[in-house]
């Protein structure tokens, strides 16, 4: 059998899982997880089958390109005259890379949820939603038509809405879900306009064909300038990947159950934006100015989020902001043209951030749904597995060699430096330090020192069941090894080998020649620098939040923390209040927007409708006025007639004169 016909199966399995569970899940009670989990397991197996074939190059060449991959045309969706949208799929190396992340983490999260959600009343609903999400996400990475991508774009938005608002009794959850959906809609607006621009320019919505036409130098003049098109597409990416200023929804999204945060808001959905830009790379490459915008927004988001993460006390929120910051890295990478690095970081980050979130979930679970780190501490003894795995994750994200994060992040920094984006490198460098700091602040507050919560809880704290710990362990492995697996040898890494054909056109457009990697030169220096700054960050955090690392006993210094925060009050408050973005939005959309809306309604009632009613009233009252001439007295009537007669005679005499 030919493998491409498996592609629709990848979609049908989770969809089926969703439909069946939605229909009968309620009756399955605690068994409701079987169908979804097995569906995803199957998906994982099939996906790996495809991925291996694609990446090892055993797959056939795709039509009209020298990339290996599978393409599958399914059916015609919209046949509207000269506007036709076909639903088709393609698995090329880029998609393959995402498939690895999506299916693997998806599977593990499913398993993890069995344990995490076991006490929830609507267990079945959760798994149904998860499958719906998997369907949408797979559709997103597989689709080969802009509009189908958009469909998936909105569907992941929907499932994210459902999952954030899963505990709908919490008003805050409901509001967070709404906020996430609406903010995403802003990005989607740009995306859909970009799609229209692409169609108007090229007359097709097939991703590869359209890009080919757009970037072919022969037909330069388009009705819609290319840079506008590119930026519109990027707007979509910003929405989904929560880049500034559309980042506000992601932290609130933590209202959802932790597995959701791990899967959707760390590992997969938020990467969609990165994937989209990478997918459209020649488009951006054709107009370098747009890439600067991407880089700027990316790196700005990175430092902004990092600065906020420094002071947050909610464990999940810290992770959320770190996710923002890491996504910022990826966009910076895309912006400077380090395509491979971006995807590399996407993959590694997917794993270790998934790990961190699941770990935090395990922590929260163990301290009875407490998320405030100030009420934690010293948990290392009680939940060693969680502690160990999370420590790995933290080291990975901090960029300590040889863990995964080191390779990807370092590649980003190095590339940006070498490609001449010094400012990107500089900011990234700082962010690296901050990252190390806030991660180990988290570790310190959570696992080290003394427990600061109520005694009663302390006694009940216990390690999570195996369904939760096993996924942690399984995720720890790539967090350690993925970097070495994909990132070596330096310069011509495995990953770049896979992705090279995808980004070839972009590189040629930008006139890039891959220069040799100098370990004992500039690159080495950069590596040392970044490792150093990471170490410094860890050290500071260690110093401040205490640890018994390596047997050295140093107590935490809360007073120093307060002292430092007192020394830079503005920065501290800014960080604590997330730079007041939520307040700004509240002002803009709730207060001002609300007033505008009420003004419009008032206008509608009083002016538009009021005019209508006024006309009616005017007519009636004029009738009431005219009534008066009917006095009831014959002589008045007669006088009226006489006057009428005179007027009549007068007018006739005038007319006669004509």
């Amino acid at each position: 059998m030919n493998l491409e016909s498996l592609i629709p199966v990848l979609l049908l399995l989770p969809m089926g899982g969703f439909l069946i569970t939605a229909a009968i899940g309620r009756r399955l009670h605690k068994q409701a997880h079987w169908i979804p989990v097995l569906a995803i397991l199957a998906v994982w197996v099939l996906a790996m089958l495809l991925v291996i074939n694609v990446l090892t190059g055993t797959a056939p060449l795709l039509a009209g390109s020298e990339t290996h991959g599978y393409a599958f045309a399914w059916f015609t969706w919209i046949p509207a005259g000269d506007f036709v949208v076909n639903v088709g799929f393609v698995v090329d190396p880029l998609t393959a890379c995402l498939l690895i992340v999506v299916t693997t983490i998806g599977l593990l999260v499913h398993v993890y949820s069995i344990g995490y959600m076991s006490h929830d009343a609507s267990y079945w609903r959760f798994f149904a939603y998860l499958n719906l999400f998997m369907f949408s996400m797979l559709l997103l990475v597989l689709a080969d038509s802009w509009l189908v991508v958009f469909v998936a774009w909105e569907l992941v938005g929907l499932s994210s809405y459902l999952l954030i608002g899963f505990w709908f009794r919490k008003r805050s959850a409901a509001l967070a879900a709404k906020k996430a959906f609406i903010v995403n809609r802003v990005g989607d607006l740009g995306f859909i306009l970009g799609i229209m621009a692409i169609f108007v320019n090229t007359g097709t919505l097939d991703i590869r064909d359209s890009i080919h036409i757009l970037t072919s130098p022969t037909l330069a003049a388009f009705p819609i300038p290319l840079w506008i098109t590119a930026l519109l597409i990027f707007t979509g990416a910003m929405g989904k990947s929560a880049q500034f200023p559309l980042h506000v929804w992601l932290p609130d999204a933590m209202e959802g159950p932790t597995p959701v945060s791990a899967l959707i808001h760390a590992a997969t959905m938020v990467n969609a934006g990165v994937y989209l830009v990478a997918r459209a790379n020649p488009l951006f490459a054709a107009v370098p100015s747009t890439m600067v915008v991407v880089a700027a927004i990316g790196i700005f988001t990175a430092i902004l989020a990092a600065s906020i993460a420094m002071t947050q006390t909610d464990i999940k929120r810290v992770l959320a902001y770190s996710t923002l910051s890491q996504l910022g890295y990826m966009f910076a990478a895309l912006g400077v043209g380090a395509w491979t690095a971006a995807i590399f970081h996407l993959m590694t980050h997917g794993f270790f951030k998934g790990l961190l979130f699941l770990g935090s979930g395990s922590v929260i679970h163990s301290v009875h749904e407490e998320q405030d780190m100030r009420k934690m501490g010293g948990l290392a003894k009680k939940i060693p597995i969680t502690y160990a795995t999370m420590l790995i994750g933290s080291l990975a994200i901090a960029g300590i060699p040889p863990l995964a994060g080191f390779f990807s992040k370092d590649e980003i920094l190095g590339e940006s430096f070498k490609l001449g984006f010094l400012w990107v490198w500089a900011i990234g460098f700082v962010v690296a330090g901050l990252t190390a700091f806030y991660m180990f602040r988290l570790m310190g507050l959570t696992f080290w020192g003394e427990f600061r919560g109520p005694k009663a809880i302390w006694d009940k704290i216990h390690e999570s069941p195996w369904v939760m710990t096993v996924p942690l362990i399984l995720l720890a492995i790539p967090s350690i090894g993925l970097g070495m697996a994909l990132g070596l040898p330096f310069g011509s890494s495995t990953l770049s080998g896979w992705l090279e054909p995808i980004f070839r056109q972009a590189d040629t457009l930008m006139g890039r020649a891959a220069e040799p990697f100098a370990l004992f030169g500039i690159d080495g220096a950069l590596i040392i620098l970044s490792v150093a700054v990471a170490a410094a960050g860890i050290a500071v955090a260690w110093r401040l939040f205490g640890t018994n690392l390596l047997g050295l006993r140093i107590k935490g210094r809360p007073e120093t923390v307060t002292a430092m925060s007192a020394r830079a009050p503005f920065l501290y408050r800014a960080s604590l209040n997330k730079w007041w973005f939520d307040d700004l939005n509240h002002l803009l959309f709730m207060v001002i927007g609300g007033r505008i809306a009420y003004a419009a309604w008032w206008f509608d009632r009083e002016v538009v409708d009021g005019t209508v009613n006024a006309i009616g009233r005017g007519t009636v009252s004029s009738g009431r006025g005219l009534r008066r001439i009917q006095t009831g007295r014959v002589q008045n009537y007669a006088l009226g007639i006489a006057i009428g007669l005179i007027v009549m005679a007068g007018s006739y005499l005038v007319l006669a004169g004509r």
Partner: protein
Amino acid sequence: MVRKVVPLLLAMAVIGTVTGFAGAMVVVLGQSWDDALFFMLAALTLIAGLLVVTMKDIIRCGLAMIVCFGCLAGIYVLIGSPLVGAAEVIVYIGAISVLVLFAIMLTQTKDAPATLVFQTQAGAAAIASTIIAIVIGLAVLATTWPNATPQRTEVTTVALSKALFSEFVLPFEIVSVLLLAAVIGGVFLAKREPGGPS
């Protein structure tokens, strides 16, 4: 006693002056007797008409109307339609006026106002009717009537009856129907209902 005499004296005075004028016309201005007669009759007609619409006592109005119609009859004779003049006397003075007087008798009551005879709008009415008069007058004077002759022509009874029974026989018949309908209606309305208010 005096209050009864005064109006009679007044009437005589009026007739006297008018006749005097007429006489003067003939004697002094040397105009034809016809003109004098016409002037007399016209003047009396108008004066009587004015009295009809202005006098307080409605019975006197009725009498004044009789005078007015009388003069009109005279004019008809003068103008050369003696038969119509006769009809005027018979129909109006003989029938209608008497009918009106009866009606007046029937509807006179103690509380019928002796003083206030005019509408509040009398002034406006006066203006309006003056304008009407002026309009008609001017229109008449501004008009030349096609094939009108400078002198009157007698309408012989023969011609009249011929017209009446040849080209106007249908109206003649219909008018009888009309009168029949009117009589039926009048009778129905005027006869007292046993149940009705007395």
